[in-house]
């Protein structure tokens, strides 16, 4: 009896901890997004303004993150870089989640030839190493952040298509789906009203976990010169520009690097916590507790 009570208490406190973590990480991510959204207003200096007289100044009161080789304020550039790096990753994840999920659900629901064709196309996309494939596409498109996002979207959607297809196949035979079909719903209504809402949880968790990865991949393309073009401040391109100064003027590389690290860590932690929170075992426990 005592053991059962202890177990129940332990599970309840575990659930509470997850809830607390979810709130904390959600607040931190919200703060990060606000920071990125209003970065231009928060910049102490013009991020593109060059001033050779103060080139490569170490971090100090006037320039908290120091200056780069052109005398540009690193704090301002990191802040503006946050806007580009974070929102381009968010747009990318939104696009691949929406497109991949719709394609996957349609293929899973329709089955037959459509399913076979879509899955073979996704197989082809998955057969290439993702980043290398994206590099090739970005190079053909002549670089730039927009083209980097397009390139990564072109190689990343199959993951969501496969996930949503398998989820669709799992729920397609459920009684409530059969009932909805008998009630006269069209295929589009079936997908939008009955299937998508039931598989969205898993897809959202995956998308949340992907934000960090996509941010890193956009930064990687920029680092290799196929993302943001000068003088655009983007964390990957800033690291690339400053990489020859890692030993001599480390702040030029470390400050955008820390920006990437913190953002990716926060999105990953939020994604992990969200996954824990939406875990059916924890949810059952919540229902029982209530």
């Amino acid at each position, binding site marked *: 009896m005592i053991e059962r009570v202890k177990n129940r208490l332990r599970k309840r406190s575990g659930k509470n901890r997850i809830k607390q973590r979810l709130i904390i990480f959600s607040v931190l991510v919200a703060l990060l997004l606000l920071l990125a959204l209003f970065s231009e207003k928060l910049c102490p200096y013009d991020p593109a303004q*060059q001033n*050779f007289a103060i080139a490569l100044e170490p971090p100090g009161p006037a320039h908290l993150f120091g200056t780069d*080789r052109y005398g540009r304020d690193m704090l301002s550039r990191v802040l503006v870089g946050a806007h580009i790096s974070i929102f381009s990753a968010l747009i990318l994840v939104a696009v691949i989640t929406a497109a991949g999920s719709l394609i996957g659900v349609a293929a899973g629901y329709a089955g037959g030839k459509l399913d076979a064709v879509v899955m073979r196309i996704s197989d082809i996309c998955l057969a290439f190493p993702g980043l290398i494939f994206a590099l090739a596409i970005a190079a053909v498109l002549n670089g730039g952040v927009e083209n980097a996002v397009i390139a990564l979207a072109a190689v990343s959607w199959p993951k969501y298509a496969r996930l949503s297809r398998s989820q669709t196949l799992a729920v397609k035979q459920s009684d409530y789906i059969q009932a909805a079909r008998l009630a006269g719903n069209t295929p589009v209504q079936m997908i939008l009203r009955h299937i998508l809402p039931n598989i969205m949880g898993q897809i959202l968790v995956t998308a949340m976990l992907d934000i960090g990865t996509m941010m890193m991949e956009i930064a990687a393309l920029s680092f290799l010169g196929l993302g943001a*073009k*000068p*003088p655009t401040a983007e964390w990957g391109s800033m690291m690339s520009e400053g990489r*020859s100064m890692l*030993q001599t003027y480390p702040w030029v590389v470390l400050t955008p690097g820390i920006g990437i690290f913190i953002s990716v860590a926060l999105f990953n932690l939020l994604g992990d916590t969200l996954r824990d929170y939406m875990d059916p075992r924890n949810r059952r426990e919540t229902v029982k507790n209530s």
Partner: protein
Amino acid sequence: MKKKIMSGLLILVLLIVGITGCGSQQRSDETGSSGDEEGQKTFVFGDTTFNAENGEPDINPHNDNSGWACIRYGVGETLFRFNDEMEMEPWLAESCENVDEYTWKIVLREGISFTSGRVMDAEAVKECLEDLVKNHPRAAENLSIAEITAEDMTLTIRTSIPVPALINYLADPYGCIYDVQAGVTEEGIVQGTGPYRAVSLTTDSEMELVKNENYWNGEPKIDKITVRTISDGDTLTMALQSGEIDAAYGMPYASYPLFENDNYTFTSCETSRVFFGAMNFESPVTSDPAVRKAIAMGIDKEGFVETLLGGNGYPAAGVYPDNVSFGGDVVSAESYDPEGAKQVLEEAGWVDTDGDGIREKDGTSLVLRWLTYPSRQEQPLLAESAQATLGEIGFQVEINNTADHNRIRTDSDAWDIYVSAMVTAPTGDPEYFFKYHCLDSSSNNDGHYHSDRLEELAQEMAKTFDADKRAELAIQMQKVILDDNAYVFCSHLRMSMISKANVTGLTAHPCDYYEITVDLDIE
């Protein structure tokens, strides 16, 4: 029991990792430079420019710019060379006589053999020069050779037109003399007369050299040399720090402070290499004289040199550096004057009508497509610096920094200004730059610049033998292109090589041709 097994496995894994680590350390010591390995002196040189992108896929001097690699790494030598004051002196040749406007008699030095074993005589040199003009369009155009006759050690060259700078052209890296009968290997290796002989070559990777035991001008001190192509500046930095290489060419300026100590030696000198932009006269933007003038006034050369090059150069006014009589301050160019540039544009009708910071005229935005390439580390820096300073004037500068520049620059619809780094007086004579960049017939005049006056002066220079008169013509020609703002010269480069402190005899030369010589040694 399980714990014991796990502990045992863990120890085993750690041992394997440890042994593997020691093994790889040993290998890295073996592959790294050692100076003295099994009684043999070895030397490893890292270079950012020995690659196909720079037109140096191998060391065949008759192939594109590969002569640079041939002469720099001690494989080939030319009939004449430059001394430290950039004056001509005989090298494989002993003397030279200009018989008449069309005829040159060159007496070769005795006792020189190719690394193939063949003796270098007039016949061998004749074969080499004939092969050169057959395969190297620039050399053929420069030398304009009509006929070569060889007799024992005397070579007589007859040209189809007067070529006053023939001796200078023969000192160009393409003029390296090699044994044509021994041929060129598939890797692009030739048998020259230099202190070292190439034994293997992989384009864009590395080349192995061994000493030429029969070298004519002293005994080479290094037994084995490896030249590594390291295109990335950071990799080059770490390679020198770790001791993987003994010396480096093309070190990023940001890395210089790491080597400014007793463990390393810098060798530097000013060269005739200039960073300059060529305007596209077919572009609706840069065909406007006011725009070209504004560009010339809108680039902060001082800031570029002092800050971004770390003082490793000096602002350029004209084509040539200070160390030649027709260079330096003999001409003047537009100085950095952003306010003046704005006024020039305003007067020409370039006005920012929509308040976006970019000027427009007749519906055309003042967008400047800046084409450059990354293999010279200074160029992306210049591009980004100019992007900011020209941006303040009302330009929108779009940078295309690409290794594919040689293809793109031939398409005059694809760029407005092409910025490159060229040695402007590789032969110590002023004719070269104009001949290849500025005239109607110039192979590098991709912007299609034309000036009647310049064409006249070029024709006059082509038949002028007197050095002082040639210098005076060069000054006038510079004034013409500067008045037209057809080119904007940003800075001349101070070239540096960095080596470990125990390396001696590695000395920077103003012409940038001679690096690995017989004097190279490692203690």
